[in-house]
């Protein structure tokens, strides 16, 4: 399966990657290889087989609706961000 340059740039945009010009062709090739390999699964007949969503066979794992005190403070968590202002995370302007 051919992965075009436009598709790579589109995927990079969706994934918020800055790609160097020199990386684009190599990535096309890598993705083609990966998809080619995975595509071998298409040779199997999966008609009527339920998709496997997870492999642990667990279900209904949920918790009570009780507020628990948090160990990590706001200051500690904000300190992990690149920039902060007014107790908020500061990011480049987005709209």
């Amino acid at each position, binding site marked *: 399966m051919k992965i075009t340059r436009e598709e790579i740039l589109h995927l990079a945009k*969706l*994934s*918020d990657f800055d790609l160097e010009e020199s990386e684009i062709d190599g990535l096309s090739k890598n993705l083609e290889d990966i998809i080619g390999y995975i595509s071998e699964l298409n040779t199997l007949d999966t008609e009527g087989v339920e*998709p496997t*969503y*997870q492999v*642990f066979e*667990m*279900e*209904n*794992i*949920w*918790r*009570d*609706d*009780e*507020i*628990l005190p*948090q160990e*990590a403070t*706001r200051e500690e*968590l*904000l300190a*992990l961000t690149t920039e902060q*202002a*007014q*107790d*908020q*995370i*500061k*990011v*480049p*302007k*987005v*709209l």
Partner: protein
Amino acid sequence: MKYYPTIGIECHVQLSTKTKLFSEVDNDARGKEPNSCVSPIDYALPGMLPRLNGEAIKYAIRAGRAMNCEINAHSRFDRKHYFYPDSPKGYQITQFYHPIIGEGYVELPSGNKVRIEHAHLEGDAGKLTHFDSYSLVDLNRVDTPLIEIVSMPDIHSAKDAHDYVKALWRLMCYAEVTNGDLYNGNMRFDVNVSIAPEGSGTLGTRAEVKNLNSFKSVERAVEFEIKRQSKILDKGEKVIQETRGWNDATGETTSQRSKEEAKDYRYMPEPDIPPINLSKEFIDEESAKLPLMPKDYKEKFGGIIADDILEVLLDYPALMKKLAEVKDAKRVSNWFASVLLAEEKSAEYLNDLPTAKQLDDLSEMTEKGELSSTGAKEVFLRLFDPEMSKRDARTIAKELNVIQENDLGELERIVDEVLADPATKQAQEDFKAGQEKVIGFLVGQVMKASQGKANPAVAQQILRKKLA
């Protein structure tokens, strides 16, 4: 040309669970500082796993039942990927393939039914505030549980669009799954509008107006879109499929970013949350907890409370609950209606409602004629006064000095006193000579002598008897 509009609405409802959908953090961030209701899970720190809030499942069942929906025994979560600073995970956990709430319908006052396609659980995003050269991110709202309700395109007028979102708001409030605070964005609406030549039986290209937060803005945005699209089609041009924003000040919609296609979200099963498989017993048990709905109250109070008053009061679920507790719902509903319609504070009065006992006492005192309608209203208003509200209605009435004198012995004594007063001698003679209206003057004297506490009707009876 005349066009026929077709409208479908997506509605996001913030659930009022104590904690968030995936972390044990306070879900009520109203009035709290930015980023103060946030955990490492909400920050999506490496290794953090979501912990599903079981209460949100129960809320979803109630919300679904309020809309006459099927509850799906099997549902699960998916990841919807997108990069934006309002979502530290880089994806939203939602239910794309197997939602918990299936098909149902909502009835409108017009009698039209709007079918519900499905509704699903998902986490909300954080809040961005934009400045000149940067934006600030507050993660308090990250993963607040939402139910997204997707309607079928069954709406064909701005009025029905308004009535549909209002009906949804009522249903969600009565189901007690949300605080329903529209001002704080507890419910948000995305409206899809398209038009086609009348009678053509086809559907036009739709535009989606996003993020409306009031019934009125939904109605106005639909009106605007119908006009805008009609002009485009009249000129022989084509409507573009796009996302549009609403400007409440100008009353216009404007073009926004082109929408990502579904495939761009790269949906995949959420591996960190096992599927939800609900037994029939569990669903039935939760469904049975659905409180009385607006239609139930309409049935209960129809013929007792006037339709127009009931329609006003139905906007206040806590008030309807209270009316169901009191003995004389008709009388109490009139007091509330007069407060809500006439007093400026209106809805503020309803934050802390009087007890059923206070209201019953007040009803009884009025019924017995111990209070005039004015007096009763005065006491009623005092029941909302934080200083007074915890007190007995009769005590308040006494302090306000509005209890009418019905004690016949006491009243007779006052009447005798008035009749013995030489100042009333002329009036008594005039009345006996057939001047009927003089009785008003005499009643007035009795009221004065009793310092306003006499029941005027009873006073008149006694006067007439004595002057006969």
